[in-house]
C-alpha cells in the first residue's frame, strides 16, 4: 500500500510539474516540484518509502524528460540518499536540511543537464546558464519548499500515525 501510494503521489506530482510548474518561469528557471517533494518526503524521520519515492520520481521524470534516462534516475537516487543522510545528521534542524538538500539537488540536476548538453554539442556559456536558469530555479525551489515541507509533515503523520504508548 505504501509503495502504491508513493507511485501514485509521484505520478500526480509529475503531472503537476509538466502541466503547471514548468510554465511558471522566473527568468528562464522553473520550479521542480517533484524534486522538492522527494526531498521533503525523505527528510521525514518516520517515512519508510523515501527510496521508493526517489526511484519512482527518477523513472517517471527520466521517461518524460529528454534528458538521459539513466542520468535522471541516478540523480534522483543520489538526491534521496543525500536527503536521508542529512536527515540522520542534522535531524534537529529539518528546514536547514531541506534547504541544503534542495541546493544540492538543484545543482546536481543542473549539472546533469549541462553535461548532457555539452556532450550533445550545444554551445552555451556556463555563467549565462547559472544566472538565467540555475539561480532562479534554486530560488523558486526554495520558495515552494516551505509549503511542501509542512504539507509533507502532515502527509507523513497521516500515512504513518504515531502509535500510542501502552
Amino acid at each position: 500500500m505504501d509503495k502504491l501510494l508513493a507511485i501514485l503521489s509521484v505520478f500526480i506530482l509529475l503531472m503537476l510539474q509538466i502541466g503547471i510548474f514548468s510554465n511558471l518561469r522566473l527568468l528562464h528557471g522553473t520550479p521542480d516540484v517533484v524534486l522538492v517533494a522527494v526531498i521533503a518526503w525523505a527528510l521525514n524521520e518516520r517515512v519508510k518509502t523515501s527510496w521508493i519515492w526517489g526511484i519512482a520520481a527518477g523513472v517517471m521524470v527520466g521517461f518524460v524528460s529528454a534528458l538521459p534516462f539513466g542520468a535522471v534516475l541516478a540523480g534522483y537516487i543520489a538526491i534521496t540518499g543525500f536527503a536521508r543522510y542529512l536527515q540522520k545528521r542534522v535531524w534537529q534542524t529539518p528546514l536547514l536540511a531541506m534547504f541544503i538538500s534542495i541546493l544540492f539537488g538543484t545543482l546536481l540536476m543542473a549539472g546533469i543537464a549541462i553535461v548532457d548538453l555539452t556532450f550533445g554539442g550545444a554551445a552555451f556559456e556556463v555563467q549565462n546558464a547559472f544566472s538565467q536558469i540555475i539561480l532562479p530555479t534554486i530560488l523558486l525551489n526554495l520558495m515552494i519548499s516551505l509549503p511542501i515541507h509542512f504539507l509533507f509533515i502532515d502527509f507523513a503523520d497521516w500515512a504513518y500515525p504515531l502509535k500510542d504508548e501502552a
Partner: protein
Amino acid sequence: MKIRSPRNWQTGLLLLVAIGLLLLAASGYLGSVVKTTLDPLVGVQRWLSSRYLAVYDFVTVPRDVASLRQRNIELENQASQLQAQVVQLQQQLREAQLLYALLDFARERPENEYIAAAVVGRDPSPFLHYVIIDHGSDDGIRHGMPVVTDQGLVGRIDAVTAGAARVQLISDSNSAVNVHLKNSQTDALLSGSITGDLTLEMIPQDIILQQGDLVLSSGLGANYPADVMVGQLISVRKKETDLFQTASVQPAVDFTSLRAVLVIANFRPVDIAPLIPTPAP
C-alpha cells in the same frame, strides 16, 4: 316689468367671478398667486408623505429583508452560474479561434496532411525546450515529423508513445534548422539556446542583412519542409575578424503560450548521414 330675484344676481355674479378667474389664469396673471398658495401645501404634503413612508418601511422591513435576502441568494447563485458559463464560453471561443486559425493554415497548404494535437505539458528540465502533445503513434505520428502552427515552425517530433509525443522546439539548444533569408536571398543555420533565444549562424560576411528580414525554412537537410515561416531578424552581430556574421531572430511562434499544434504527417525526414563523406582514417 318683472324684477329679477337676488338669487339670480348671485348666480350671475359668481359666473362673472369664475369667468374672470379663468381669464386671469389663462392669461398667466394668477401663477404667482397660485404658487404662493400651493407651496406651503406641497411642503406639508411632502412632509406627511415622507413620515408615512418611514413608518410604512419601519413596519414592513423585517418581512422584506427576509424575502430580499432570499432573492439576493438566488441572484448571486444565478450570477455565479452565468459567470462560470461566460468563462467556459470564452475558453471555447479561444479554442475555436485557435482551431479556425489552424484550419485556415491547413487549407492554405492542401498538399500536406496534418494531425492536430493539443500541448499538454513541458519538459521538467528548464534547460530543455520540449513540449508534450496529446497524440502519439496510434494517431499516425512518427519520429522526426515537423510540427507547425498557423504562425510558423514549432519543431519536430523527438519521441513517440502510443498516446503522446514529445516535440523538440526549434528554440532548444540542440536544435538546428536550415533557413533561408527572404530579402537577403541567402541560406543560414538557425540554432536554439538554453535560454530559448534563436541565433542565425553561418551567414557569409559579404551578405548585407536588414532588420525585419523574414526567415523561412529552406528544406535543406530534409529535416523540415521548405518555406515555412520561422521568424524575423531583429539584430545583426558582425565582426570583421570572424568568418561569418551572426544574427538574432524573433521567432514567429510564441513558444510560451503554445496550446495547439499541427503535425505534418506526410513529411518524412530523410537521413542523409550516409551521404555525408567522412574523412579517411
